[in-house]
């Protein structure tokens, strides 16, 4: 009997908890975040999670968004699509969140695309792949710049440098696969031929073998596309082999930890990136400058660490959502419509102009071509 009583009371407790959960509090903004805080993509998720927490705390200290406190439900997916799916289901069904910020990686984001669309939950992905918003899903947005824009920026720079025959290396992550597809699709338009395209394991520790193979193809430049630590190994191996061609990286390189890890081998590498990394050097007329300087200062003060473009994606996702809530309240249909109608919102990644057909809102000029000089990121001299 006692066992049954205990069982019953637990059942009642769970039912009660569910009912209160369902009811929610209409005066709060229930915000989910699924980010790769640990695991191989922690370099993306950690600054993102820190940024979100910082912005939520700041908003709540100032009375919330339009008088509504923000309730943050932060989950660490460890970069695993399976975990991202189960956390998303939990956030959607149990926590009944208005929106989910993240995931950090393209692979995870693609898994959540259908799920969020079916459950009418706004997804603000922080990942790069074009396929997240192309074709457009009504409830899925993304604030990180397109990988197609990054590829086009790289090809335009190559054209200026007189490069026409290249080798491509990509990692076997969702980000790498997306990049490989865009590079191969867009190269012919800029008159560039890809002589060889190879894929490496994201946990690779030595790449001299495949670089030897690429060198044998007499290429004029090398493009590496990954977010993992292997992108620093590529740089070291290229220089150790005496493979003397310009090396281009994707926008996944925008993190000083990689420059430190590659040391002298990072000098001269060329890559597209958001302006977070070079905020100091922007002209005063730049619409993003004030916001970038503020974000940098706040991030460095709280975390004693350089901000990266990835933390900037989380900043932009929160900024877009907060603006939509200010305009439309917490009704999910109205918030979604508000995001779709937003024009000229300055974020760390660029100026966002959303429309029903464009759920990214960033143009190709959101990128700046950067290089590494004396261990620091600087704009590439034209």
């Amino acid at each position: 009997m006692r066992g049954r009583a205990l069982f019953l009371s637990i059942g009642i407790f769970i039912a009660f908890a569910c009912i209160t959960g369902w009811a929610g509090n209409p005066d709060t903004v229930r915000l989910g975040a699924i980010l790769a805080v640990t695991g191989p993509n922690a370099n993306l998720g950690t600054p993102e999670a820190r940024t979100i927490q910082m912005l939520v705390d700041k908003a709540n200290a100032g009375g919330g968004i339009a008088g509504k406190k923000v309730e943050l439900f932060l989950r660490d997916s460890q970069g695993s699509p399976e975990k991202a799916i189960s956390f998303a289901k939990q956030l959607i069904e149990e926590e009944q969140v208005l929106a989910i910020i993240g995931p950090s990686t393209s692979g995870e984001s693609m898994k959540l695309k259908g799920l969020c669309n079916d459950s009418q939950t706004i997804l603000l992905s922080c990942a790069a792949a074009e396929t997240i918003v192309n074709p457009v899903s009504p409830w899925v947005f993304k604030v990180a710049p397109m990988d197609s824009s990054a590829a086009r920026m790289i090809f335009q720079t190559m054209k200026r440098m007189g490069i026409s025959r290249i080798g491509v290396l990509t990692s076997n992550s969702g980000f790498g696969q997306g990049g490989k597809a865009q590079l191969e699709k867009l190269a012919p338009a800029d008159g560039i031929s890809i002589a060889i395209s190879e894929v490496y394991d994201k946990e690779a520790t030595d790449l001299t073998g495949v670089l030897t193979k690429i060198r044998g193809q007499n290429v004029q430049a090398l493009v590496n596309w990954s977010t993992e630590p292997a992108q620093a190994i590529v740089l070291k191996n290229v220089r150790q082999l005496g493979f003397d061609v310009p090396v281009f990286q994707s926008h996944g390189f925008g993190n000083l930890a990689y420059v430190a890890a590659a040391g002298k081998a990072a000098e001269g590498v060329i890559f597209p990136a958001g302006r977070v990394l070079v905020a100091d050097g922007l002209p005063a007329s730049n619409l993003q400058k004030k916001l970038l300087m503020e974000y940098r200062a706040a991030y460095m003060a709280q975390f004693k660490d350089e901000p990266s473009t990835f933390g900037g994606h989380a900043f932009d996702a929160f900024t877009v959502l907060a603006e939509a809530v200010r305009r439309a309240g917490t009704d999910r249909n109205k918030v979604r419509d508000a995001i779709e109608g937003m024009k000229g919102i300055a974020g760390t990644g660029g100026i966002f102009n959303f429309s029903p057909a464009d759920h990214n809102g960033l143009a190709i000029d959101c990128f700046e071509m950067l290089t590494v000089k004396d261990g620091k990121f600087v704009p590439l001299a034209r």
Partner: protein
Amino acid sequence: MSAAQLLQYLLSGVATGSIYAIVGIGFTIIYNSTGIINFAQGEFLMLGGMIAVSLQAFLPLTAAIAGAVVVTGLVGVAVQLVFLSWLKKPGVLRMIIITIGLSILMREAALHVWDEKVHALPPWSGDETSSLAVLGARISPQVAWVLAVSALMVAALTLFFRFTLTGKAMRACASNPAAARLCGIRAPWLVSLSFFLAAAMGALAGCVVSPLTQTQYDMGTSLAVKGFTCAVLGGLGNVSAAVGAGILVGVLESASISVLPLAYKDVVALTIMLAILLLRPQGLFAGMTRKRGPLGRVGGA
């Protein structure tokens, strides 16, 4: 394919293989003296690299590495005393699960003590871009360091297990704990010593590969898988064979890269491992169920 290119593939294989080999050595030490396969060996490498990177901020490189080796060795002893020493006659499966659990614990602890970022020690000689030219092919001088350190470890371990009283006592404990105790050997103390050695050697390996592989809190697992493959391929417990096997796997991977797309590299490595397990399983399973180290197989092949 030109001769220079062929040689370059060979050297790349040696570079990759040297990393596998030095990780493989760590597995053999604990196996030799206790019959345990320590799946947390990769984490000892990570710890060594991380501690050295931290110490290097205020110590010269050599002192930082020495410090990392000693500290990691002590961590190894602590792990053995806290988690393993109270187990009486643990089964193989139980030990595997415990050491896998330990590896997760150490990884998560490292994430909190340090951070999620990638770190790297500077190369021991030259800088990140320097290389040695060998007949038109090039190789990082750090690979020479890895090979030299591996050779030193093999020599030192062989001498230790063959010719010192402590080394012989350790082998005796693995071979027959009861008889060893009757002869007055203090077995528990020697097991702690073997964990100290394995952790310290792991830390040294972690420091010497750090300029090549870089060091991150979760690097341990993937390195351990490859290192374990090589330890098995060489016949568990055989230190010099583990090194040979490591370099063999590296060269085979490199050969596969030269003709097949890079993505098939691991398929080649794992196929070899499966073939070995099918054709010569005694290297792995016979040793584990006997619950004793393969006496006298420490040095020679």
